[in-house]
């Protein structure tokens, strides 16, 4: 038991474990299926947010077009489900049975070529991952090889978001237009609208999200993570140490796009439709604020940020719709001006020291140290060992920004 604990401490997985327990145990027990489904929907944005932590927080590459990748993943899934829902028997009243209803409305008489692969689930799932990654690669490879800096890249990604939105809305017959692809009911005959299906999908989402966080955490701890940090500090030095800086940024951006695509697919599965309203400029930049509120350097924080902003959005836009945009405006400005490291930053700079100090004083006054005090003490002890890491072992914790997975567990309440 103790062994496991030290293993967790050493890798800074405390926050990760707490998030896992919260998502996989506490939420399902505390919420009815309607709410849980809502959380599941928010968590699909969480994929985008942790992707942004990797490419924006770590790689210094701000993308204002993550909605595009989210949408591509979502549409890939939706196209498969729509084709399944449009079998010739159900659609026999159409002038061309066997094609999606919106195509029929737009006088299209045969399934377009690019829809054909989506008749097969494996190909559709492959597309969920490959299509966003490939587009991200094309965009970023061309730009980073030419040293296009952060600001220009952000503007170009925003333009891409606009292009894709206009394209989707304009090509109604092929994409479903403004309405998107709707009435998605089954996947290989499995009804995704039942309560049990919703539970399963929720847990699949949580599993994938935790898996993605772990993957990103591992990348952060690898040499590649160190290099990304080094590049933000001294890009030229990295370049003249023999690294192809552009490719590292391309990797970070592609990773973020891939994660966003997975999120989009899970969104479609849980919500039952996909439309251009998740692709455009506004949703894309909103996704940035999820990561910023949670803390652009903290993977776990990004998930909390996503949940918090979305709960807020749902609550306020129902009760005080006028207030919500003001609040959102305040979030953007406040996060930039006052809390550049978001919730995770507040946690590491204020909550955690206060907590440790308090626990220490409780210990001093002689009261029996409770379970939490013990935890805090071992937490502090873990920090001490970090400081005393002998030379030769990699002291990665020297990085002040190492809020990685360790940050933020205090915000879970």
């Amino acid at each position, binding site marked *: 038991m103790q062994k496991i604990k030290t293993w967790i401490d050493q890798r800074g997985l405390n926050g990760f474990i707490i998030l896992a327990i919260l998502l996989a145990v506490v939420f399902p027990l505390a919420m009815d299926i309607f709410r849980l489904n809502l959380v599941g929907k928010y968590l699909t944005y969480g994929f985008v947010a942790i992707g942004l932590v990797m490419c924006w927080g770590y790689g210094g590459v*701000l993308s204002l077009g993550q909605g595009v990748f989210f949408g591509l993943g979502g549409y890939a899934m939706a196209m498969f489900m729509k084709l399944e829902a449009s079998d010739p028997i159900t659609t026999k009243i159409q002038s061309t049975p066997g094609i999606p209803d919106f195509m029929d409305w737009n006088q299209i008489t045969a399934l377009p070529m690019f829809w054909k692969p989506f008749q097969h689930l494996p190909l559709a799932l492959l597309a969920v991952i490959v299509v966003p990654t490939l587009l991200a690669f094309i965009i970023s490879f061309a730009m980073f090889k030419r040293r*296009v800096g952060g600001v220009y890249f952000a503007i170009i990604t925003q333009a891409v978001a*606009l*292009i894709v939105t206009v394209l989707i809305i*304009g090509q109604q017959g092929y994409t479903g237009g403004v309405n998107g692809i709707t009435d998605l009911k089954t996947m290989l005959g499995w009804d995704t609208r039942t309560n049990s299906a919703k539970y399963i999908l929720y847990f699949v989402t949580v599993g994938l999200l935790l898996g993605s966080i772990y993957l990103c955490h591992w990348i952060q701890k690898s040499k590649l993570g160190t290099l990304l940090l080094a590049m933000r500090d001294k890009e030229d030095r990295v370049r003249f140490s023999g690294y192809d800086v552009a490719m590292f940024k391309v990797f970070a951006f592609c990773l973020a796009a891939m994660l966003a695509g997975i999120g989009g697919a899970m969104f479609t599965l849980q919500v039952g439709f996909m439309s251009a309203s998740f692709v455009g*400029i506004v949703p894309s930049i909103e996704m940035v604020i999820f990561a910023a509120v949670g803390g652009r350097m903290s993977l776990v924080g990004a998930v909390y940020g996503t949940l918090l902003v979305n709960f807020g959005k749902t609550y306020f836009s129902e009760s005080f719709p006028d207030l919500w945009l*003001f609040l959102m405006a305040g979030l953007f400005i406040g996060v930039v*001006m006052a809390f550049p490291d978001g919730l995770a930053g507040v946690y590491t700079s204020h909550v955690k020291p206060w907590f440790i100090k308090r626990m220490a004083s409780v210990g001093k006054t002689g009261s029996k140290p409770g379970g939490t005090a013990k935890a805090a003490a071992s937490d502090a002890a873990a920090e001490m060992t970090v400081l005393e890491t002998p030379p030769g072992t990699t002291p990665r914790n020297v990085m002040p920004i190492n809020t990685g997975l360790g940050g933020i567990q205090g915000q879970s309440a």
Partner: protein
Amino acid sequence: MSVSEMLNIGMMQGFAGLSLFAVLLLMGLGLAIIFGQMGVINMAHGEFMTIGAYTIFLFSTVSENYFPKFVQSYFIFAIVAAFFIAFALGWFIEWALIRHLYKRPLDTLLATWGVSLGMQQCFRTFIGPKEVSPTLPDWLMGSWSPHEGLDIPINGMFVMVLTLVVTGGVLIALYKSRWGLRVRATVANRTMANSIGINTKKTDRLTYAIGCGIAGIAGAAFTTIGSTGPTSGSLYIVDAFLVVTFGGAASLLGTVASAFGIAQMQSISEFFMTGSMAKVLTLLTIVIILMMRPQGLFASKIRR
């Protein structure tokens, strides 16, 4: 179809392209100063345009209800007022936000996006969610037909003239005035400019405010073409940024050239396909060119 008819269509088509050029240039000018010269990403640029548009609407409503004599002439005063209102707000926002963020361009982007959201909601709450149009003076209405079958809309010509005046004014101000010299010095070398006695902070604030003021004029001009709603500004923002980036951020002439190029590309392709596909094609072309040549059309080679 006779030759003269074809000629008429050609001329009207050319005029449509020119007036789109004027619109794009007017949008881009303010941003060319703020983004091109200062490097500040002002995502609230569209909302400053909306402010200008609402100013016109305010003047038109007031003069219609209280000073009917004024209806024919309010427009000119309203444009000047639009400049100064947007200018004042820009001054305030620079002081409150932008000046703290000069070293963090990406954060400026997020903060100004927040500003734009806030402004949009202000419009919605205090002015109303519906789109409004001012009552235009008669001399702006209708069209000019030099001969049979050729109609040139007067509002389009007005926007073009205004664009010409504003562009000329900006060019003169930037290259002939004291302020322009200060701006260019600050852009070239901030520390040096500071040490030879230029108050760079004040220059920044003034520059940002002027950029916002020009956005106000642009918005005012657009009321002659379309109606104004709380989110009108957000429709322009990407276009405006692309115009400036495509031209080469630091070059005003580049902005002019790129606005012209984009407008012609858009209006010619609109002749052959639907509006949305023409837009996609135009944007895609710009993005691809920018990928190949990130410095834009006009860029100077400097020793680094």
